């Protein structure tokens, strides 16, 4: 395996959690709900996936635990913002703060324990393709899921009836409600989908990226995922591209550190965060295109009238 393949493999590993978490948030935001709790759901998914894997010895049970945990944890957010119409920004922050606290406590006995890595699944024939084979067809289940989900979500949002309804709710919940679409129910499902994806992204961190539990191991990826949704202007394919771009940036700093170029490691570590800010500015500075792309009801509370 050449050096370029090796580097590209690390890019894929770094990009997968970003793609997954932001894809979930994309669906949530398309339904008009802004959930800033991605970081919290992700870190909860990571710790539960690790714990379940340790308990059962199977990382596949771990993946399921991560997904279930993310979805359940997001219900807390759903109940507050959808049923009790609490402020979405504040509730999302609360979810992140709570997730970081609870995961720290759950994870305490697992600190320093060596984990079980999710093994790749080799797809016969395709894996033998030179160069692309080892990159794309000797990957773990979570990578395959991330690609399938991007395709699936794109189809769902733009080709299916249910997806059309979901987008309608995100653009005008009042009109959607008047047409008899179940605004709150759809939003609950969208929030839970976002939570499940964030949980899966967390599972990738503690089972693939670094198979161990470290406190706060999401390290801001949940926030970068939120920025990615804006970067992708709420479109799944652009999100895939953006996820890989960010994966490349965050991994390039590790490679740069390994090669020992003369820049302090802290500056290199700051690169993904600085890149996020710069990309956000480039994407949003045109007020009109931002307005066109953003779901019009995003972040606005909805109380059905009777």
């Amino acid at each position: 395996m050449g050096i370029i393949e090796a580097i590209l493999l690390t890019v894929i590993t770094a990009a997968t959690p970003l793609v997954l978490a932001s894809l979930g948030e994309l669906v949530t935001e398309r339904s008009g709900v802004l959930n800033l709790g991605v970081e919290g759901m992700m870190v909860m998914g990571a710790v539960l996936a690790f714990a379940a894997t340790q308990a059962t010895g199977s990382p596949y049970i771990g993946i399921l635990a991560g997904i279930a945990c993310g979805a359940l944890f997001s219900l807390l957010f759903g109940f507050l913002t959808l049923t009790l119409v609490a402020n979405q920004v504040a509730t999302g922050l609360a979810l992140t703060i709570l997730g970081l606290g609870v995961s720290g406590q759950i994870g305490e006995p697992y600190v320093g324990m060596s984990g079980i890595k999710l093994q790749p699944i080799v797809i016969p024939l395709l894996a033998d393709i030179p160069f692309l084979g080892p990159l794309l067809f000797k990957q773990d289940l979570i990578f395959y899921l991330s690609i399938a989900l991007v395709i699936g979500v794109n189809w769902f949002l733009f080709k299916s009836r249910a997806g059309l309804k979901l987008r309608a709710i995100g653009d005008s919940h009042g009109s959607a409600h008047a047409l008899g679409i179940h605004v709150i129910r759809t939003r609950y499902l969208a929030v839970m989908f976002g939570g499940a994806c964030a949980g899966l992204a967390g599972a990738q961190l503690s089972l693939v990226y670094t198979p161990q539990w470290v406190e706060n191991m999401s390290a801001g990826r949940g926030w970068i995922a939120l920025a990615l949704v804006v970067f992708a202007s709420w479109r799944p394919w652009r999100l895939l591209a953006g996820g890989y771009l960010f994966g490349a940036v965050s991994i390039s700093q590790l490679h740069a550190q390994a090669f020992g170029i003369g820049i302090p490691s802290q500056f290199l570590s700051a690169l993904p965060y600085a890149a996020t800010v710069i990309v956000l500015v480039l994407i949003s500075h045109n007020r009109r295109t931002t307005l066109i792309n953003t779901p019009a009801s995003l972040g606005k509370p909805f109380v059905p009238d009777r």
Partner: protein
Amino acid sequence: MRIELEKRANPSTLFSILSPFLALALTVVAGGIMFALIGKSPVAALYSFFIEPLLDIWSLHEIAIKAAPLILIGAGLSVCYRSNNWNIGAEGQFIAGAIAGAIVPVVFHDWHSSLVLPLMLIFGMIGGALYAAIPAFLKAHMNTNEILTSLMLVYIAQLFLDWLVRGPWRSPDAYNFPVTRDFVPEAILPELISSGRANLGFAFAIIAAVGLWIMMRYTLKGFEITVLGQSERAGRFAGFSSKRMIWFSMLLSGALAGLAGISEVSGTIGKLQPIISPGYGFTAIIVAFLGRLNPLGIIAAGLFLALTYVGGEAVQLTLSVSDKVTRVFQGLLLFFVLSCDTLIQYKIRLVFSRFGQTTEGSAH
């Protein structure tokens, strides 16, 4: 069964006073359940978490020390949040203030003068304000979401501080430990009263909170903040500029966070080190909401959250419970505050649709 909301004609005064207390009560109950789940006696744990720290002078001083940054930052954030500017990067502005303020005692470490401390405090405020100016500029002129930019800047500030204390600012006589020189005595914030460690930072916090309360209640600026926060359009008709408000609220909260940062470093730590805050900038968000975005309420809320820090350390010692419970408590508290606030605007009904009957909830 499902829950339905009915909008009140007017916000309930009763619940706007009651809601924080309801949230506190629910947090205590949930905390008791949590302690029971991890096999500790809830009564003993809650006692050493919430009551014991109030019973001796030493821990009262600790509460004041921890409340000071929470109140300073929280009061500034309340102005931001009321005007609909979501600065969640106060942690970064806290660090920026600490670094800027520490320029004087670290770089000019031979300078002994009574000017050192005032200069440090001013530099701290400027540092925090400048760091908040980045998301303010990006929001006001580049249309960029301030939530994400201000948060990203937190990570950058943490890494920058880490580089400083391991690199150019590392003390020559600290045996390679990542710390700066100890500040000279003239650079240390004086103690408030002789009985313990609490320093002038607490006085700054009270002054700032009361000052902001007066501003919000009695001045045109306060009115402008409220109007623009509730409806940008209405504010425009009144001749208020939302761009100027972005700058005003972000710079103000940044300066206060910076003051909190330099006060913490100067009064409590006495030097710079890689970690200077147990997440004050994030906890202050909870303080702002628990205080109902009212500066006087924020004083009480800041004291309470400081108690959760001190109580968390106490249960760690007495019951060998992990200090992570503090963060769990804080997260739970914010959840309960936000849900109880619903009662101010809405009546909650439980609907049993199968029988078509409506049972009114206890909340009126």
